[in-house]
């Protein structure tokens, strides 16, 4: 039945599902029934909805409305991680809060001769030794916080202003890009300026250097010394910044310079600097005393050396689900050292 086939082929052509064979069949049929060319033409036109077409201005308004609903929803998930409260109630509270804020700012506007800069409420995430945590910031950026760290962030980032957080310890950031509001991480020794990217910042107060590691995107590190030196990092580079304990030191001893280096791959794609984000403990050609420092932090234990010469042994390894004993036994298996636990639970390397 030629005409049935013609309909089927016209349908498939319209749907972009025509095979080569079918295309030549269609050509033949169109030659036999040239008037069917008109109907083919009609189907190849652009068709639009008969009711309620949106103009591009309306679409833009839809997007703006959607963005404010998104911000609202993200704020909810941050405030109530377990979200037991029914959503409607939250909406009500948010509504009240929003109108209060409006009132307050209107009040400020009318009664203050000078405009006071409203500071957003601060929130803080703290991890103890042994615990690592993950958080979604109100702008959609995700932060993994390593053990013994502290992150200060506003409950709501202000529009058209940089998004700023303060970090003590170590965190891995996957920043949601927003060209209008650059993301900044402040530590005691340096500041990191970013657009959208993923990077790791390690700035533990007790360590003698701080490290910024870039995985993806681009960041700038601003050193908080007198020079305000800026160092740009490319993907898979890290910057190690020595920390000067007292200002006097700077004058008397040569200042160690910040050092840029390539990231270290232990195996396949495991980067030692960021392995902790995936709950992996990874190190490559690292001195045992640094490995034990990692273990102390990872497992929340105390480790010391009976034999100081063992401090400078070098190890490479990736551990995932192992407990402390398993890790120590695996390292001990190299027969270069042995370990024991004393009555207080402290680990001794000998």
């Amino acid at each position, binding site marked *: 039945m030629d005409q049935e086939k013609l309909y089927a082929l016209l349908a498939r052509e319209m749907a972009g599902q025509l095979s080569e064979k079918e295309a030549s069949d269609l050509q033949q049929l169109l030659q036999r029934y040239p008037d069917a060319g008109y*109907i083919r033409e009609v189907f190849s036109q652009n068709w639009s909805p008969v009711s309620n077409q949106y103009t591009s201005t309306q679409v833009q308004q839809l997007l703006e409305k959607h963005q404010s609903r998104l911000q609202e929803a993200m704020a909810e998930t941050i405030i109530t991680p377990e979200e037991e409260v029914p959503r409607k109630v939250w909406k009500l509270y948010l509504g009240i809060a929003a109108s209060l804020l409006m009132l307050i700012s209107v009040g400020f506007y009318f009664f203050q001769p000078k405009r006071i800069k409203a500071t957003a409420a601060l929130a803080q995430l703290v991890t103890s030794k042994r615990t690592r945590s993950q958080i979604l910031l109100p702008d959609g950026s995700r932060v993994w916080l390593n053990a013994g760290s502290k992150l200060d962030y506003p409950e709501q980032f202000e529009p058209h202003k940089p998004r700023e957080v303060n970090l003590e310890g170590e965190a891995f950031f996957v920043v949601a890009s927003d060209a209008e509001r650059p993301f900044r991480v402040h530590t005691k020794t340096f500041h990191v300026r970013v657009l959208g990217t993923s990077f790791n910042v390690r700035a533990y107060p007790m360590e003698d250097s701080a490290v910024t590691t870039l995985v993806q995107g681009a960041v700038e590190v601003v050193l908080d010394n007198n020079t305000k030196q800026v160092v740009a990092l490319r993907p898979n580079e890290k910057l190690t910044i020595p920390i000067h304990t007292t200002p006097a030191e700077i004058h008397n001893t040569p200042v160690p310079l910040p050092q840029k280096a390539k990231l270290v791959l232990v195996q396949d794609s495991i980067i030692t600097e960021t392995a902790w984000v995936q709950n992996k403990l990874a190190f490559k050609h690292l001195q045992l005393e640094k490995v034990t420092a990692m273990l102390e932090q990872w497992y929340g234990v105390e480790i010391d050396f009976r034999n100081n010469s063992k401090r400078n042994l070098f190890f490479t390894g990736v551990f995932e689900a192992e407990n402390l004993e398993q890790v120590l036994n695996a390292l001990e298996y190299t027969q270069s050292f042995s370990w024991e636990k004393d009555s207080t639970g402290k680990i001794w390397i000998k």
Partner: protein
Amino acid sequence: MVNDKQIQSLFHRVCYNNDMQAYNELYIALCTRLIHFSASIVSSFHLAEEIVSDVFITLWQKRNNLSHVENPLVYLYVSAKNLSLNTLQQQKKHQHRSIEHINLDILSIAPDAENGMVSAEVSQKIEGAIRSLPARCQLIFRLIKHDGLSYREVATLLGISPKTVDAQLTIAVKKISQAIRFDLSDEIVQTFLRIDS
């Protein structure tokens, strides 16, 4: 219209790079199609706008767990469908509604008048022909002709086989073709009359 590849790449940028700009582009590219689709189920554009916004909010919240999604377009349509049906159920006004009970006025499409290919009269005939089709057939025609979905995508969305999609679309094309009475050779016109009677 934004093609599948571009949608795939925008979606990828959202899931892997947390790219808010790509996310906004994705919203702009798809929101009106999804709103019309959702509105045909819930019979309200206002409600549909919220539903589609919720679909995109969920997309942003879950983006890091969505890298396994093979077809982002189908994922978004299926999310919009499920959320629309849920919304209906919550309203309790229409219990046991399914995608078969769609608001056909919302789904109507016709060739653009501007390009002069089709007169107002023919356009009306086309609309009439589409309205005479069964609801599911109209929906399939709309999803393919206007929303640019493939057979496979429509099949996944509606839980039917690609063969059925093909057959339904052929029925729609036939009905519309007959409505505008293009003058095929007399022989074929005669055959049409035989089939119709």
